C-alpha cells in the first residue's frame, strides 16, 4: 500500500470539488490530504490529494477521476521524480530549559518561530510529510499543543509541466 500524490487540474466551477470528494466517499477510496487553490489560469484550480492503495486501486482511482467531466488533466506525481511540500503551523509548550531546546530543534528543521508567548512557541515548518513528522517526533508529542497542516502540494521535477 503505497502513498500516491495525485495532482489534478480542475475546472474552476462550483460543484467540481464536491464531485471529486464525493467520488472518494462513494467508492470507498481513502483521502489522506487534499489541497485546492486557484492557478494562474483563472478557469482552473489545482488540486493535490494523497491517497493509499495497491496498484489496482490507484488505477481505478485515476480512471474514475478522469471520468469526471470537470477533471481536465490528472497526473500521479509519485510515478516520477517530484517535489512534495506541506506547511505546518504547530504550537508547542515552551517553558524553562525547553525553550532553548525547542528553538534549536526548530532551527535544525529550518522551522521559524512565528509567534511567542511566555509558555508557547508557534512554529512554522515546511517540508515533505515525513520531515514534519520527524519534527514532531524530535520535540516529543507531549510538547505539542496544536497542529495545523495544509496537506501535501506537489509538482513534478524538471521540465515536466501539468498544463492544458
Amino acid at each position, binding site marked *: 500500500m503505497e502513498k500516491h500524490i495525485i495532482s489534478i487540474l480542475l*475546472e474552476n466551477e*462550483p*460543484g467540481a470539488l*464536491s*464531485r471529486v470528494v*464525493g467520488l472518494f466517499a*462513494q467508492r470507498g477510496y481513502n483521502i489522506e490530504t487534499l489541497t485546492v487553490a486557484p492557478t494562474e489560469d483563472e478557469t482552473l484550480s489545482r488540486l493535490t490529494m494523497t491517497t493509499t492503495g495497491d496498484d*489496482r486501486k490507484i*488505477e*481505478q482511482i485515476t*480512471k*474514475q477521476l*478522469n*471520468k469526471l*467531466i*470537470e*477533471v*481536465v488533466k490528472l497526473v500521479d506525481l509519485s510515478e516520477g521524480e517530484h517535489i512534495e511540500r506541506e506547511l505546518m503551523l504547530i504550537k508547542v509548550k515552551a517553558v524553562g530549559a525547553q525553550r532553548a531546546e525547542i528553538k534549536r530543534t526548530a532551527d535544525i528543521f529550518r522551522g521559524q518561530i512565528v509567534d511567542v508567548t511566555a509558555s508557547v512557541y508557534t512554529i512554522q515548518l515546511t517540508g515533505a510529510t515525513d520531515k514534519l513528522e520527524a519534527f514532531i517526533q524530535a520535540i516529543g508529542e507531549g510538547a505539542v499543543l496544536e497542529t495545523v497542516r495544509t496537506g501535501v502540494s506537489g509538482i513534478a521535477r524538471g521540465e515536466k509541466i501539468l498544463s*492544458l
Partner: protein
Amino acid sequence: MELLSGGEMLVRALHESGVEYIYGYPGGSLLHVYDAVYKQSAVKHVLVRHEQAAAHMADGYARATGKPGVVMVTSGPGATNTITGIATAFTDSIPMVVISGQVMSHLVGDDAFQETDMLGVSRPVVKHSFSVRDPRDIPELVAKAFYIASTGRPGPVVIDVPKDMTMPNERFEYVYPKKVKLRSYTPPQRGHAGQIKKAVDLLLNARKPVIYAGGGVIIDGSSDKLRALVDRLDFPCTNTLMGLGCYPATGDRFLGMLGMHGTYEANMAMHNADVVFAVGARFDDRVTNATSKFCPDAKIIHIDIDPSSISKTIQADVPIVGPVGSVLDEMMALLDEADSEPDSDAIASWWQQINEWRQRHAMRYEKNDSGLMKPQEVIEALWEATNGDAYVTSDVGQHQMFAAQYYKFDKPNRWINSGGLGTMGFGFPAAMGIKLNFPDHEVVCVTGEGSIQMNIQEMSTCLQYGIPVKILCLNNGSLGMVRQWQDMNYEGRHSHSYMESLPDFVKLAESYGHVGIQVKSRDELPQALDDAMNKYKNRLVFLDVAVDPEEHVYPMQVPTGSMRDMWLSKTERT
C-alpha cells in the same frame, strides 16, 4: 434576432436537440417553463402520475432508440422522486436529460419551500450535472447536456433550473450552439491499433474461445458488426442480460445468456475457455461469480469505451479502450488481411464439447399436468404470439429471468430491463415510453404482481395519452425471487415475500378504463394472448396470469463458486 425568455429558450433548445416528447410533472418552480410548453406544439409533454415513472419512460425510449430521453420535474419532491429512475439509467449507461426546477436563486440555501439540493442528491448517479446561473446559458447547457448524455459511455445528465432563470418578462437573445466542445471531455473515437492487433492474434490462435458480448454492443449500435465477427470466426457467443439481442438468440452460435442465471453451456464454455473476448461487457458480479475462480485458463480481451470498466474486477490481458463498432471494424479488416485462420480442428472439437454440454438440456422445465402453469411456458407462448418480434420490457424478479431465458431475442434494443440496478417498477413505464414512440410495434411488459404495483398508477397516464401497452403479469402471489432465495438459503422461511391482499387486477385495469383478462390455466392462455394482441389491439390489456409459485429460476450459480458451479434444478448440481 429573436428574444426569448429562459423558459422559452429551454423548450426551444430541447426541440433543437431533437426532442419530441418530454415526460414530466409540473410544480411551482417550473410553472414558467410549463407555460412555455403550453405555447408551442413542437415538443409534446406527457404527464405521468409519479415522477419516477417519467424517468423510466424516458429511459425506455432511450433504450429502444439510443437517443436521450427527457424528463422534466419540479423542485424538491418532484426532483427527488426521479432519483430511482436516474440511478436506473446511470447503472445501465442510458442517455437521459433531466430538467429539474429549483427555487429562486436568492432563496437557494435558505431551506426554502420545496428546496432540495438536487445536484447534491443526484451527484452519485449522474454522468454530469449543471445548474443554470444565467438564462442566456440555457441553450448551451442543453446542448452540452445532450452531448454528454449521448456520447462516450452514455448516462443521465441533470440540469437544475432556478425559477428566476425562466422569468417570462426577461428576454434574451436565443442562440443554439452549432457545435459543442468541452476541453475536459473527449470520448475515445477508436481503439489502440497495437492492442487491436494483439487481440486479433490471440483470437486467431484460440482453441477454445468464447465471445462474451454485453449491453455496450447495443448502446454502440454495433450488433451487426458483432454478428459478422462471430460468424466470420465461427466462435461461440454468449450475451449478458443487458446484451440479449445483440447476437440473435435463435442463431446456432448462440450459447444463451451467461452468469448467475445463465445457461449451462454458456457458463461451462466460459469456465473452460482459453480466450474470452469481452465486447461491451463489464464483468459484473452477476456474471463472474467469484472473481478469484473466474475462467482460470482464459486470456481476456476486453473492449470497452469506459477505461474504468477495464481491469476493474477482472484483469484484462488485452485491454482496448474505444467504441465497440470502430474496434470491431478494425478487427475485421485485420482478420481479412491475416494469412492464418483459427485452427479449424481445434474449433471443431470445441464445438463438439459445447454441443455435448447443450445435450444436457439444462433449460428444460417440467410442465404441471394439471393446475397452475409454469412461468416459462407463458413466456414461450408470448414469444409465439408476438412472432418473437415484440419490444419486451420487464420488471425485476423471477419473471425477468424467465423472460430473458425464454423469449428468444433476435434483435437488439428489444429486450428492455433494469439489469444493473434491478429496479422493480421499471418495466411498465419503460414500456409506455417505447409504445408512445413506436405505436405500430407490439410492446409487452412482463412483470410480477409485486413489481407492477410499484408504478401501477401509470395506467391512468396510458388512458390519457392512449398508450396501449400489454401487461403480462406472471402472478405467483409472492415476491418470487426473494422467496426462491429464502427456499434455498433460509430453509424456506418466507419472511415477507408473500404478497397478501392482492388487488383484483382485472377490475383495477377496468377501473382505469382498460381491459383486464385473467388467465388461470393453460387452455385459456392462447386465446387471452390473441385477444390482447388483436381483439384489443388499441387498448391497454392487463393479462393477469396465474403461475406456479413453487417454481425456481435455474440454472443458478452457486455463491462463491466459479462460473461452472450451478444448481440446475432443485435437486441437481454441477
